[in-house]
């Protein structure tokens, strides 16, 4: 048996979040997501939370486990003592129980133009890429958009305008892609205060990332790229 304390929020009955306690039967294979499903099926059907794949692929089950951002399906009760606290992902607006509003996150992702931009949009030729060219960005393309890094980032917590770890990582991933020609379109945003430069390399984002993307590395590589870009713009007389 494990005791789970969940921060709940039911806006139609109360504006103030409250903590509810549940006792869960658990064995070595019980994940936090299993526990939530057990509560919903057996104890309290009103509990709300997101999930889909239950195998760390879809990125929808993020929550705070004892104050640390985690994927519910990839976190196991066996790794915790008797008492476990579950809260919605930090730094994002909470809609209900463990469900957060991901809009800011998605807007930031979209803002960096996270797709291949080609020079010649009419070309139907396939792109060639060598393994060495792919190795440059592969790690950064493993992101599952779970948003854990945003909950880990104090700079995003202080200023939600900050593009944040995953969005900058995604921008960098496309900038490093030999098939892409959109770097010039992405740099102006990365060069701003809300771009790469809000990062102070706390590094917690990389610690919590369930996919070992190392967003902190991508953000700081982007700073180097941004510095280079700004010097080039200066010489071109664009600044």
């Amino acid at each position, binding site marked *: 048996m494990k005791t789970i304390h969940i921060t709940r929020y039911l806006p139609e009955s109360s504006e103030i979040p409250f903590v509810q306690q549940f006792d869960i039967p658990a064995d070595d294979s019980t994940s936090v997501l299993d526990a939530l499903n057990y509560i919903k099926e057996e104890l309290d059907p009103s509990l709300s939370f997101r999930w889909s794949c239950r195998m760390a692929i879809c990125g929808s089950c993020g929550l705070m486990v004892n104050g640390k951002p985690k994927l519910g399906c990839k976190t196991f009760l066996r790794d915790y003592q008797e008492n476990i606290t579950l809260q919605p992902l930090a730094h994002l607006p909470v809609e209900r129980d463990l469900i957060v509003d991901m809009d800011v996150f998605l807007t930031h992702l979209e803002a960096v133009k996270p797709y291949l931009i080609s020079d010649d949009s009419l070309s139907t030729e396939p792109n060639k890429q060598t393994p060495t060219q792919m190795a440059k960005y592969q790690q950064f393309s493993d992101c599952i958009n779970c948003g854990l890094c945003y909950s880990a980032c104090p700079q995003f917590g202080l200023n939600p305008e900050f593009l944040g770890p995953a969005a900058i990582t995604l921008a960098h991933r496309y900038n490093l892609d030999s098939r892409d020609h959109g770097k010039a379109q992405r740099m102006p945003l990365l060069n701003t205060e809300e771009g790469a430069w809000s990062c102070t390399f706390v*590094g917690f984002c990389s610690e919590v990332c369930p996919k070992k993307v190392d967003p902190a590395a991508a953000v*700081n590589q982007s700073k180097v790229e941004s510095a280079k870009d700004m010097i080039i713009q200066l010489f071109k007389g664009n600044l």
Partner: protein
Amino acid sequence: MTYRTTLSRTWWLKHNAFKAYMLREATVLPLTFFILCLVSGVYCLWQGESQWNHWQTAMGQPWVLAVNLLAFFASLFHAWTFFQLFPRVMPIRMGHISVPANVLIAGQWAAVLSVMVLFSWLFWGKL
């Protein structure tokens, strides 16, 4: 209707990762003291012999020595954190292979060591 948790002033006390980060950033405090000592030393040298002697006496005070010693260790600690992060920020590839992080970290320490050796040779003329 939504609610959003805000960061308190003590947010950095919540995780060891944040405490380590704050410790790294706090190394700037003793280092600022060291820089001030250095700048005032140059200024006193320019002012003449008596000022220079005053500065030397001031620098010999136990608490000044202690803070400067702290600054020395703080700079080594900061360097240690920086050297760890460097391979992630500036990954180096040579052709098909990327240089392993350990090699880059060792290279940076080797550079620190050679600067120290060079300076001890410059100041004391022997190793």
